[in-house]
């Protein structure tokens, strides 16, 4: 792989491209982890939000509001610098980055999914209850199928926000694309000057995000909201 790229792009450039693609791996891993764990917690928050139990609903509303209002950068600083100093021992950048992005993603996903579930007419719930079904069976068999159709496009669209969000993780020492490129740009050799390497990195992010954006638009047209 490395040799092929050096053959294609020449000596410094091939190595740079090879390293960039290598570092992209961590960006993708972090995005995937954040998306999955954010989705799990987001689902739990959504459940709490629609549960009908007053205390849970209040908690879910507050959670969604708070983590949508707090900048991701502050979450990263808090989990990467604040909490470790408070506890008095180090926290791995992977953990901090994952926790921040999970909190961030879960609030947005919960809001999207809550909206999708609320878009299903109330009568559907009442119909389910009236034939003797309980909360979870009604949710699973009647409410979720149409709600998933509504939620799918914005959920895919939000994954773009997560990928873009991971670019901030370098601030707490997470080794990803951003971190690597900054080092190249700070000590440039031919072909890694800031005006070449930053657009190159932008292209990689674009390559990750653009297909997802397109997919979101396609799903929106296809599933029709």
């Amino acid at each position: 792989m490395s040799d092929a790229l050096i053959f294609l792009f020449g000596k410094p450039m091939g190595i740079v491209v090879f390293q960039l693609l290598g570092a992209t791996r961590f960006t993708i891993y972090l995005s995937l982890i954040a998306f999955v764990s954010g989705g799990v917690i987001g689902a739990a928050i959504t459940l709490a939000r629609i549960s009908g139990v007053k205390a849970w609903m209040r908690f879910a509303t507050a959670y969604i509001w708070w983590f949508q209002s707090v900048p991701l950068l502050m979450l990263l600083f808090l989990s990467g610098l604040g909490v470790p100093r408070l506890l008095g021992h180090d926290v791995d950048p992977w953990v901090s980055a994952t926790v921040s992005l999970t909190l961030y993603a879960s609030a947005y996903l919960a809001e999207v999914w809550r909206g999708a579930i609320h878009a299903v007419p109330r009568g559907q719930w009442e119909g389910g209850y009236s034939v003797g079904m309980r909360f979870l069976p009604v949710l699973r068999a009647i409410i979720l199928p149409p709600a998933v159709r509504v939620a799918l496009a914005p959920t895919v669209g939000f994954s773009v926000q997560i990928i873009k969000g991971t670019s901030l993780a370098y601030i707490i020492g997470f080794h990803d694309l951003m971190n690597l490129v900054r080092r190249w740009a700070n000590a440039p050799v031919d072909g890694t000057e800031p005006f070449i390497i930053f657009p190159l990195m932008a292209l990689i992010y674009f390559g990750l995000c653009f297909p997802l954006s397109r997919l979101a638009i396609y799903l929106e047209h296809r599933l029709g909201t």
Partner: protein
Amino acid sequence: MFDLRFFEIYRNGEYMWRLAEGVWLSISLTVTAAIIGFIAAALIAVARMNRVPVLSQIAVSYVEFIRNTPLIVQLFFVAFGLPLLLGYKWPFWGHALLGLTLNFSAYFAEILRSGLMAIPRGQIEAATALELKQRIRFTKVVFPQVIANVYPSLTSQFIFLFLTTGVISEIGVEDLTHAGVFIDSRTFRSFEVFITLTGLYVAIALTFKGCMHAIDRRCFAWKGRQ
């Protein structure tokens, strides 16, 4: 249990002063970028709607490219790449303003475009039937409706974008985040500092929301939106 010392921040005049300056710079840069970005976005959206050849293709690529890359990458390119390439020297806030404006304009352009598409064709046909000139047709018939329709999305997008502006501290602008990082480096009270900063960001976002809501009620009351 935990030793929290918020007073180390708020009893120190220099730190408070830096925070205040940071708040001011964050707000003023964001608002300025949003206003210029909005004007640029309107031009982009109009170019796309009228299918101006070449220009509209450039506009599409521009909007898609900005929306699908992280703000911080754009800022680094604008702050470190462009000046080296073109050989100019600006103060830090100039780079930040340019970067934020580019970023905001793409997001706003997308919202304005969807607003323009939502205007019923009959409106434009009716205006044409009344023999209104194209300029009047646009400024008096189409544009006010578009703005009123997309105002809520513009507002929430603006707040969302404001919450991402902390990254301008990374290119040396002494904004709110920069003030926090400075205080942190002096006091090592990271948790307290960033909790304070978080509170300030949320407070500013809420203030923006309140202002936007007041403008909405004042300017778009004719729309009859609740």
